[in-house]
């Protein structure tokens, strides 16, 4: 399996593939990737989150990776949209992942 990607698994067993560098943005995921769970071969189970929540978190990680390197003089960072009905659960996921 490719070492450049990790797979995140949600409560209902849906899988989301994300680049290793995007996953590293989360200190929690970084610890899991580098930690004793290394033998899991790039598969991380996050069973406490629904699939739509995890999907949105993955989307944010990619967004963060894309725009965090932009020069600080550049003001052209687009806004990351969050559906209202998702905000409470997404906050809990964001808190857990420290993102």
């Amino acid at each position: 399996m490719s070492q450049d990607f990790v797979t995140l698994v949600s409560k209902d067993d849906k899988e989301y593939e994300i680049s290793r560098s995007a996953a590293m943005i989360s200190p929690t995921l970084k610890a899991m990737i580098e930690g004793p769970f290394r033998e899991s071969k790039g598969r991380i189970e996050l069973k406490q989150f629904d699939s739509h929540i995890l999907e949105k978190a993955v989307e944010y990680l990619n967004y963060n990776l894309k725009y965090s390197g932009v020069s600080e003089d550049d003001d052209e960072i687009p806004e990351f949209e969050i559906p209202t009905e998702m905000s409470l659960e997404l906050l809990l996921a964001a808190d857990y992942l420290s993102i």
Partner: protein
Amino acid sequence: MYRSRNRPKRGGENEVKGPNSALTQFLREEGISAENIKQKWYQRQSKKQEDATDEKKGKAEDDSFTAEISRVVEDEEIDEIGTGSGTETERAQVSYDARMKLVPADSDEEEYETSHISDTPVSLSSANDRESLTKKRQNTAKIIQNRRRKRKRAADLLDRRVNKVSSLQSLCITKISENISKWQKEADESSKLVFNKLRDVLGGVSTANLNNLAKALSKNRALNDHTLQLFLKTDLKRLTFSDCSKISFDGYKTLAIFSPHLTELSLQMCGQLNHESLLYIAEKLPNLKSLNLDGPFLINEDTWEKFFVIMKGRLEEFHISNTHRFTDKSLSNLLINCGSTLVSLGLSRLDSISNYALLPQYLVNDEFHSLCIEYPFNEEDVNDEIIINLLGQIGRTLRKLVLNGCIDLTDSMIINGLTAFIPEKCPLEVLSLEESDQITTDSLSYFFSKVELNNLIECSFRRCLQLGDMAIIELLLNGARDSLRSLNLNSLKELTKEAFVALACPNLTYLDLGFVRCVDDSVIQMLGEQNPNLTVIDVFGDNLVTEKATMRPGLTLIGRQSDSI
């Protein structure tokens, strides 16, 4: 030529009649000496090797004085202009002086020359001023720009913001706050209905997750009267708010009304909790039995008395910290009204409490399990005798003992209190004796050898400066070795590596080794290998821990000097 042409004319015209001229008077007042001027003039003449015999001598003193002044000034002018030395300011000054001193002269020719001389410095000065003004403007713009950048960088650093992209947490909180505000504007429904709909619109959160939500909001400093509405839920029983600084006294009343089944409530930094809202909490929460308050400094003695009367017979856990208005009388009221039901008591940083001796008389519940006495205002108010008496009362059932900052305690408390009254098969889960600098290795070694601490989860000996290796080794020979999850050995300067050879705890996750001088790279490596679940070691002030320390994957060092921000 210039000089020879002008000298005779000026000499003649400058004759002054009368006792003293204004100029003479001025020069006297300024302390300018004719003799000095004469000497300078002579030096100048000798340098130029001019014939001294050209001098017109024999004139009256006043006339001679004035004539010499004029010549000296004239010479200076020529020098300045000819050599180009001196600054624009000096040139301007000379011109000004020259004009003033030449006023007696009536020659049209002289006036023209003076005007011409004075124009040049002014013109040059003006041109230079224009250039420097432009440069100054450019510099100012740069300075302002740099200042803005520095300010932004400092703000980012203080907020620990690594980059410009907002965190997902702050984005979620912004969305949540916006919707709460929107809902409040559309307040045409009953308030209870609003709360339920509010949570549904925002996606809903299970009751079990509400405390996680509270923690997340507090962490982001977003817990306030608006976001408080997320927690108004009839089936909520336990609630912890870590940062209540933005919750108003009305917020607490709202909470008491709409979450009526709360049994455990913890309000940290509740500086706005006032007497009205505290009594409201007591009256509207009939099932409340556990209350933890940090910083309720608006509550006075009378209100505490009323509160404890209302809570009589049902208050089981009470922890309070950081207020000077909880007095001995308040403590007495607490113990008289609620002492028989209390199973957990915490008193921390209460500047007005001195009568800790009351405690053994009233803490009589057979199931008492937690005692925290921290940082008494006068250390001697918490002494060996009081703690020994207390442990005689509650030692059998104690699961948590925290005596931080009780620096009057000595080995006697360990031997005659802990060892004497804690049962051999000890239920103790938390033991913290921070800053007990009179407690020695011998007494603790004795305690650990007599009592099996099979349930000990958390242990702290921070700043117990006299503790050496044998105390730690004895602890680890104890049953505690298998149960410990958190161990604090901060500032135990007497420890050597020998203590850490024995440190092999299968369940340990956190270790604080700050300011322990013997800790180095090899110790870190050994600890990582011997403690498989260890995830964090604090190493602040451990100068021997370097970037070369080899760490097992999953282990994080915090406070290493070589790590960058």
